[in-house]
């Protein structure tokens, strides 16, 4: 069986997918560090890192890649490089609009549009799409060996994987043109076919009844300005979709050892493959560990009595120690059972890395290094 680290060696893009709150950001930074220490030029694209993680990397993160100082942080002086950036969705979206609009008036019209201003954060897939756009920028304008991507906290991780196709499909329909075509203000000039006209009338009836003329006006203005960008956007969205499905791109699915979370993890892995994006393996975070092999309660008791731990008054300390050991043993046994069930159900041979629960918060590069070591190991 391969380790996770081996499975990603020939990739250019490694995406991290997984449900929220399982430690995606930290593990993706740790993986990037492990790869950089292996002598490669690595970039990690993160979406919303904790401030402490930025501190751990020893730098302020911006929307552009910043090189992390591994020399003073870890005493590392090899060939490898670690770069990091934090996505700023609004800036990326505005950059994108600027680069596609050849007329500065259009840029102003988009950026000043009320719908864009009030609701662009809620526009379906904006965050996801800008993340992939940023990724495309990194692959075309920089020369990294591997880019590690911490996917955004989506309502559904699949939104992220589908964002480019979704945008491409949407633009393919030329929805902007349709709406502008049906716009009563232009209707007399542009509608030629009577079928179109009939459909157009019903659409307008639906829109004005269901939304109100006020809102539809604003929405139309939004679509009108977006129409200018549509064809360029579509070509880009198609390239982004191809990039996601390229054999040089692969996905790791990350979770924790909880039956509900693992169900999501298994489901995700299946869905990723269905979308023709390569699935590379699993990462299970915060695993419990019970040192069975070096553990014998009776021996422990006599050893501890020898060093004088249980001289009165606290024989009950022993009971508490046993309670903690029992708790840990039960947790580890439950975990092993849950993980066995999971592996027998979903792809038994897929690489899997187990990252034990850390006793300390990670706040520097050596903390990340402690996590990094586990990607190259086989599961126990």
């Amino acid at each position: 069986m391969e380790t996770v680290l081996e499975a990603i060696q020939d990739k250019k893009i490694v995406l991290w997918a997984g449900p929220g709150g399982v430690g995606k950001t930290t593990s993706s930074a740790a993986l990037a560090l492990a790869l950089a220490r292996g002598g490669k030029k690595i970039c990690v694209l993160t979406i919303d890192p904790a401030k402490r993680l930025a501190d751990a990397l020893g730098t302020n993160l911006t929307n552009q890649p910043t090189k992390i100082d591994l020399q003073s942080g870890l005493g590392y002086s090899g060939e490898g490089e670690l770069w990091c950036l934090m996505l700023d969705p609004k800036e990326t979206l505005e950059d994108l609009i600027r680069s596609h609009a050849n007329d500065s008036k259009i840029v102003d019209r988009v950026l000043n549009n009320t719908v864009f201003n009030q609701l662009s954060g809620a526009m379906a897939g904006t965050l996801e799409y800008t993340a992939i756009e940023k990724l495309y920028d990194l692959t075309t304008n920089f020369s990294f060996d591997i880019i590690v991507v911490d996917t955004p906290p989506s309502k559904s991780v699949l939104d992220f994987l589908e964002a480019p196709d979704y945008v491409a499909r949407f633009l393919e329909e030329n929805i902007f043109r349709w709406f502008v075509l049906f716009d009563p203000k232009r209707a007399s000039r542009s509608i030629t076919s009577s079928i179109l006209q009939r459909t157009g009338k019903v659409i307008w009836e639906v829109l004005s009844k269901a939304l109100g003329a006020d809102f539809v006006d604003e929405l139309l203005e939004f679509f009108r300005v977006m129409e200018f960008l549509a064809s360029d956007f579509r070509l880009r969205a198609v390239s982004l979709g191809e990039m996601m499905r390229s054999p040089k791109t692969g996905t790791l699915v990350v979770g924790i050892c909880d039956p509900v979370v693992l169900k999501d993890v298994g489901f995700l892995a299946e869905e990723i493959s269905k979308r023709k994006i390569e699935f590379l393996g699993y990462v299970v975070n915060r695993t419990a560990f019970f040192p069975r092999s070096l553990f014998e309660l009776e021996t422990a008791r006599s050893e501890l009595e020898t060093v004088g731990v249980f001289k009165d008054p606290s024989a009950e300390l022993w009971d508490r120690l046993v309670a903690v050991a029992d708790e840990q043993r039960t947790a580890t046994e439950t975990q092993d059972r849950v993980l066995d069930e999971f592996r027998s159900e979903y792809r038994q041979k897929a690489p899997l890395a187990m990252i034990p629960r850390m006793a300390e918060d990670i706040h520097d590069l050596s903390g990340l290094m402690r996590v990094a070591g586990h990607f190259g190991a086989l599961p126990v």
Partner: protein
Amino acid sequence: MLRHFLQRQLILVTGKGGVGKTSCGLSLAYALSEQGKKVLFCEIGGRASSPIFLGLTEVKQGAAVLSWKFNSKLTLTHLETSAVIQDYFRDALPYERLVRFATNNKILSRLWAAAPSFNEFVLLNSIEKICQGTHPRFDERYDHVVVDLHASGHAVTMLGVPKGINRIAKFGAIAERATAIGKILYDSRRTALTIVTIPEELPVQESVELKQRLQDEVGMSVECVILNLIRERHFSEKEGTGFERLLGSMNEGSGKALIRLAATEMKHRQRQEHWLGRIKDCLAVRFVELPVIIPVGRSRIEKLATVMGEVTLTQEWGG
């Protein structure tokens, strides 16, 4: 703690992903139903996980699953996107043919998928109708509607949608609906918004930021924070220091392995206390602490609900 929630009809639960929003929200709904109230627990978007996980009985309406029964007082449902879009049009359009056109027409369905905030809006629209007892599919009136919202950032976006729409449009169907939703949503006497978190670094930081963002961007205040997965402490500080000393002096073996377990446990608890202290310093709200309950499933929901019924809110006013 239940008194705070018993006074509100609409209860919204959010927080960072993975902190146990759904379990806590469902336990709260169950605790309210145990007080004799009729309660609806709503999951939104994606897939509904808890009814299947809990193995609940389906309640069908025609061919579609409408809801699941937890007990005679508590019903679970999943407000799925295409269904709430249909709900909206049934209400806004005069006849069924137009509704079918609005939902089946290729161009229009693309528009609904692409129009900024439309999904969030129709979801809130259905929730408002359920609260009013005027929803066509949920015609009963519920004493409490508990909604398991999306994680932090998405919840802020969603809750701000009625305000955003009202800023864009003053008249027309969507503006009227947005106003009606806002009347319930932004009224702190009718709606309680609660954050679930756990005593760890990222969830605590995110909760502090989330409360601020809800206040600044949406004008909604959080009065109660649920602290989930609080573990009991087994050892005193002094014992902890003793463990560290033993680890330095003992030879490897079973005894040292046991002490190492205890010392690690101690570190986890110290870290928990650090972050509990931190959140209590940062947020001037009421806190509810919930223990770790194993195993998962129906009995966990019932046990957490019992705890909720028993604890009184700790009032903490800090900086």
